[in-house]
């Protein structure tokens, strides 16, 4: 069974690549990922292996996967070694205006003949939904990060300064009395 989802992200391709190629980030944006752990010494790139598990229906399915294609900043593909038979691919293509089209393709196949085929079909909407939500989450994170990097310069032209400790406290007031939290007894009496 083949699932392909895609989205346009208003972030340059290299930035998207840096994010998805960093295995430590994977756990943050793939929805339903219950397990994601590096196996072996290789931390990333071609040949890196990960033990993964994704909640599909009542149980966590997955197994050991290996990166089989690592072509920055275009394509990243993996293949299952043990567990559920699967292949997957991240495909990044530039869009006009500096954005990136991110495509995520996953092909999986359950063993067990007819029952396996039925399970494939039943799992399809679940997998599609989770992958689409993952892409949406990726888009949200990348664009938020890009906005945060550009905002201070756009407003003042100077780097944003950290507010002083306790600066926001005066604004928080008790709903009934209208007194500021942290006010001393003397202030209350007065």
């Amino acid at each position, binding site marked *: 069974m083949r699932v392909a989802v895609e989205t346009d992200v208003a972030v340059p391709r290299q930035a998207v690549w840096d994010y998805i190629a960093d295995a430590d980030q994977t756990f943050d944006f793939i929805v339903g990922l219950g397990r994601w752990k590096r196996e072996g010494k290789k931390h990333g790139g071609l040949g890196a292996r990960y033990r993964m598990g994704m909640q599909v*229906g009542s*149980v*966590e*399915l997955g197994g050991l996967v290996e990166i089989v294609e690592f072509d920055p900043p275009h394509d990243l593909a993996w293949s299952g070694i043990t*567990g559920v038979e699967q292949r997957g691919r991240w495909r990044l293509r530039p869009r006009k205006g500096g954005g990136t089209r991110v495509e995520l393709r996953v092909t999986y196949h359950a063993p*067990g003949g007819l*029952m396996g085929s*039925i*399970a494939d079909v039943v799992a399809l909407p679940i997998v599609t939904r989770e992958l689409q939500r993952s892409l949406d989450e990726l888009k949200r994170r990348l664009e938020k990060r890009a906005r945060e990097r550009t905002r201070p310069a756009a407003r003042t032209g100077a780097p944003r300064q950290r507010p002083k400790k306790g600066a926001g406290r005066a604004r928080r007031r008790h709903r009934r009395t209208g007194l500021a939290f942290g006010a001393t007894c003397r202030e209350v009496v007065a």
Partner: protein
Amino acid sequence: MKPLLPPIRDDFEDRDPDHVRTWLPFLWLMASLYFRAEVRGLQKIPRKGPVLLVGNHSGGNMAPDTFIFALAFSAYFGAERPFHQLAHSLVMLMPQARWWLRPYGTVTASPKNAQRALRTGAALLVYPGGDYETHRPSCESARVDFAGRRGFLRLAHRAKVPRVPVVSIGGQETALFLSRGESLAKLLRLDRLFRLKVLPISLALPWGLNVGDMLGHLPLPAKITIEVLDPIDLHRLFGDRPSWSEASDYVVGKMQDALTRLRTERRFPVLG
């Protein structure tokens, strides 16, 4: 009187990971669509080596908790990891045992088989309550009842393997279990003939009144929730020579607390 059961056979060679893999989709469909199962805490099971998984048994002879947990275990750790389950001698005599249970890793319940499974480095699932617990009345659904059996503790202590409790709820709602029928079993001498402590009486599909549950039944689609608890280290808690009654009370108490918590999560019978 000598039991009429045949001698315990060697089932260990029958386990076949390919068979396990082939059956996973069917089990997944049943667990996900029919029983809407939820399995939590598998990460608490040691990733490698022998481990004794101690569960509370529910659902009569069609115990769905067993196959749902077997599915979750094999899906999580892979069908390659050796995993055995102990089953009553009578269950292993049923025709389905030959083509389904034995290749899945089920072996006849005996201390010798249990020791052998742990010695070979396998994960072993035991239900100390066995037939006594799985046929308890539905009103005792949220009760752990091992009938005072403690052999599993000695077994794990001797083999020096971690004991991991596995608690499940929902199985007792797959039929209306009315009584264990202990008196009836005693009267018919089933204990001596077949090592059966019970002759359960239930209302179950498609039979209506179901006595004995020998042919199984069609389970109602009750929501099954399974939770794996933290491993219990009896060496650390009770020393090298523990009092077995204290240790048993401790383990059963931990499981009972978890089961009571799972019970409070359920709002309706069957629906969960």
